[in-house]
C-alpha cells in the first residue's frame, strides 16, 4: 500500500465514522437512540439489514470459497427469501404494534419475565462470545497480509466502531452502514471489472466462465438428494429457512435494524429489498472467487496462499523441504496452464473425442496440483502443529494487494474495514440495547421513566461490550476456521431461541412456565450433545442440526409440559 492507498483507506473510513458520530451527536431520546430515526425510509433499513449480516469475513472468505469449492455455496441462502417473508408477515407487525425495543421484550409481554430474561440471556451469551471472533477474524487476515500489528489492528477497528456507535446509537449505525455499503458495492464492482481486465488476452468473461465451469466451479444449483453432499438446493431451502428465520426474526442485531423507521411499510420493504437482492449478491461474490480461480490458472500461482506463513517456513530450518514442494507445484501448475490452453483450442472444434480428451487431461492436471497443495498443508502441519493451514481466506486479499493498481488497493482494503465496522456496529448496538432494556431496566424498573438516564446507560453498555470484544479478540486463542466457529456458536443457541419465538407466535395456549423449562431442557441437551460428541461418535453430526434439534425440542417439550401445567391467563398481546 502506498500513500494514495492510505489516503483512500483512512479518508473513507474516518470520514464515514466522523460523519456518523457528528450527525447524531445530539441523540438524547431513547427511542431514537435504540430504534433509529422515526423518519428512516426502507432503503436505509434494507441496506442496514444487509450491512449487519455482511461482515468483513463475507468479503474475505466467500471469494476464497468460490475459488476452492465453486459457487454452490450460494444455495445456503436459498431459505432466506421465504424466511424474510415470514418475518415481514408475522414477526415485524407484532414487534411494531407492541412498540418493543428488543425482540425479548416481546417474550416478556407474551409469556413472563423469566422467559424474557432467558431469551435475552441466550442472545447476550451467544453474541458476546461471537463478538470477539467477529473483530478478530478480519483483523488477523488484514494484519498478516499488510504486515500490521494484530493488536493495533484489533484496537483500531474496535475503537472507531465504539466511538460512533456509542455517540449516536442505532441512528448512527444505520447512517454509517449506508455509506459503508456504498463503499463495499463500488469496491466489489471495481474488483470484478479489474479481474476481468487482468485475464489473459483473448479470454473474456465468457471463455473464463467456460474454464471455471469445466473445472467444476460453476455448479450453482445441485438437485441431488444425497445427504452426504454439503450444499444442495434442499439443504439450502430447508436449513437456510431455519437459520434465516432464527437470525432475522429473533437476533436483536437484525431486529433492531428494522423495527424502527417511519412506518411498518418501511421495515417490510427493507426486508423485501434483502429478500430480492441477497441471493444475487452472494452469487456475485462467489463468482469473483471462481473467476479468480481462472485468473490464477494463467499466472504463476502460489502453492499456499498465506504467503507470510509459507515464507516464514521457507526461511526456517526445514526451508529446503518447503521449497521443493513449491517447485513441484510450479511445474505442475505450468503443465496445467498448458492443458487448459489446449482444451480452449479444441473446445470449439467438431471433434468431440479431442475435446473430451483435452478436458480429461486438464482435470487430471488440476487433481495433481490440488494433491500438491494438500501436500504443502500436510508439511506445514507436520513441521509446525500450530501452523494455520487454511489459506482460502488469503486468496482474494492476496490478489488485491499483488494485482490491483494503487488507489484500488486502498478502496478494496476499505471494503474490508467498512464491512468489519458495519457488522460490528450492529452487533454492539444490539448488545447495548438488550443489556439496557432487558437486564438493567428489568432490575431497576423505576429508572425506566428517566429517559436521559436510560440513554446514558445504553451508551455505557455499548462501550462495555465494545471493550469486551476488543479484550476477547486480543487475549483469546481462536479456532482456525473462524466462520465455522461463529456458525457453531450461533447454531448452539439459535434453535432454542427460535423455538421460544415459534411457540410465542403460533402455539397460543402454551404459557411462560412450560416454554421456559422446555427451553432450559433443550438448551442443556444441545450443550450435552456438543460436549459429548467426541466421546460418543453417534452424537458427532453436523452442527447445523443443533438448530433443528433445539427448535423442535423446545416446541414439542413446551406443548408436552403445558399439558401437565395449569393454563396461565392470556396476557395481552398485539394479536
Amino acid at each position, binding site marked *: 500500500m502506498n500513500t494514495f492507498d492510505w489516503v483512500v483507506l483512512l479518508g473513507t473510513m474516518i470520514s464515514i465514522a466522523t460523519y456518523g458520530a457528528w450527525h447524531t451527536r445530539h441523540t438524547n431520546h431513547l427511542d431514537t437512540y435504540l430504534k433509529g430515526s422515526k423518519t428512516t425510509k426502507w432503503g436505509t433499513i434494507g441496506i442496514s439489514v444487509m450491512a449487519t449480516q455482511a461482515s468483513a469475513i463475507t468479503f474475505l472468505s466467500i471469494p476464497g470459497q468460490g475459488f476452492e469449492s465453486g459457487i454452490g455455496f450460494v444455495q445456503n441462502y436459498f431459505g432466506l427469501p421465504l424466511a*424474510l417473508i415470514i418475518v*415481514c*408477515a408475522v414477526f415485524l407487525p407484532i414487534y411494531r404494534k407492541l412498540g418493543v425495543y428488543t425482540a425479548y421484550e416481546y417474550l416478556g409481554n407474551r409469556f413472563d419475565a423469566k422467559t424474557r430474561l432467558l431469551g435475552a440471556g441466550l442472545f447476550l451469551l451467544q453474541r458476546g462470545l461471537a463478538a470477539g471472533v467477529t473483530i478478530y477474524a478480519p483483523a488477523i487476515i488484514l494484519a498478516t497480509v499488510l504486515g500490521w500489528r494484530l493488536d493495533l489492528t484489533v484496537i483500531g477497528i474496535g475503537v472507531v466502531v465504539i466511538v460512533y456507535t456509542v455517540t449516536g446509537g442505532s441512528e448512527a449505525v444505520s447512517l454509517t452502514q449506508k455509506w459503508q455499503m456504498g463503499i463495499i458495492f463500488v469496491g466489489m464492482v471495481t474488483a470484478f471489472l479489474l479481474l476481468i481486465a487482468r485475464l489473459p488476452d483473448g479470454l473474456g468473461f465468457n471463455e473464463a*466462465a467456460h474454464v471455471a*465451469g469445466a473445472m467444476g466451479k460453476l*455448479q450453482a444449483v445441485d438437485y441431488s438428494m444425497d445427504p452426504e453432499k454439503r450444499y444442495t*438446493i434442499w439443504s439450502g431451502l430447508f436449513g437456510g429457512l431455519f437459520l434465516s428465520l432464527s437470525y432475522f426474526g429473533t437476533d436483536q442485531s437484525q431486529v433492531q435494524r428494522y423495527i424502527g423507521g417511519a412506518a411498518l411499510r418501511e421495515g417490510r420493504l427493507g426486508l*423485501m429489498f434483502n*429478500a430480492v437482492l441477497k441471493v*444475487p449478491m452472494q452469487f456475485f461474490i462467489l463468482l469473483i472467487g471462481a473467476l479468480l480461480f481462472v485468473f490464477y490458472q494463467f499466472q504463476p500461482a502460489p502453492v499456499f496462499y498465506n504467503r507470510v506463513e509459507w515464507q516464514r517456513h521457507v526461511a526456517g530450518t526445514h526451508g529446503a523441504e518447503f521449497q521443493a514442494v513449491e517447485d513441484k507445484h510450479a511445474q505442475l501448475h505450468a503443465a496445467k496452464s498448458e492443458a487448459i490452453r489446449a482444451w480452449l483450442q479444441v473446445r470449439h472444434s467438431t471433434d468431440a473425442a479431442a475435446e473430451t480428451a483435452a478436458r480429461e487431461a486438464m482435470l487430471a492436471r488440476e487433481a495433481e496440483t490440488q494433491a500438491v497443495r494438500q501436500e504443502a498443508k500436510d508439511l506445514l502441519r507436520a513441521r509446525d502443529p500450530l501452523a494455520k493451514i487454511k489459506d482460502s481466506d488469503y486468496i482474494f486479499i492476496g490478489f488485491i494487494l499483488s494485482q490491483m493498481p494503487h488507489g484500488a488497493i486502498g478502496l478494496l482494503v476499505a471494503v474490508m474495514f467498512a464491512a468489519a465496522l458495519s457488522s460490528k456496529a450492529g452487533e454492539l448496538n444490539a448488545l447495548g440495547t438488550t443489556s439496557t432494556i432487558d437486564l438493567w431496566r428489568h432490575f431497576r424498573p423505576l429508572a425506566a421513566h428517566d429517559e436521559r438516564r436510560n440513554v446514558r446507560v445504553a451508551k455505557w453498555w455499548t462501550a462495555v461490550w465494545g471493550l469486551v470484544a476488543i479484550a476477547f479478540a486480543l487475549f483469546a486463542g481462536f479456532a482456525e476456521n473462524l466462520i465455522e466457529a461463529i456458525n457453531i456458536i450461533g447454531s448452539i443457541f439459535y434453535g432454542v431461541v427460535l423455538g421460544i419465538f415459534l411457540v410465542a407466535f403460533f402455539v397460543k395456549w402454551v404459557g411462560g412456565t412450560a416454554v421456559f423449562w422446555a427451553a432450559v431442557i433443550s438448551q442443556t441437551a444441545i450443550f450435552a450433545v456438543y460436549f459429548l460428541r467426541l466421546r460418543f461418535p453417534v452424537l458427532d453430526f453436523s452442527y447445523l442440526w443443533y438448530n433443528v434439534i433445539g427448535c423442535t425440542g423446545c416446541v414439542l417439550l413446551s406443548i408436552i409440559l403445558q399439558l401437565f401445567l395449569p393454563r396461565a391467563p392470556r396476557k395481552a398481546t398485539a394479536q
Partner: protein
Amino acid sequence: MSGSKPESSSQPPSVQPEPDPDDFPGVPGFKNWRGIYIFVIAFFAVVVVLLTLFSQHYR
C-alpha cells in the same frame, strides 16, 4: 336463498371499515402485501432457474 334484498332508505347506510394503512405497500402495481410476497417468491424462483441454466451452460 336467492334474490336481492330491496334497499330501504330508512336503514342507515352501511359503513365500510376503515382500511388499514399497513395493508397498502405503496409500491406501484401492488395492491397489498400478499402481492409483494408473491412477487418475491416468483423472483426467487426465476433466480434459481437462471442459476440452473447458468450452471448447465458453463459445464
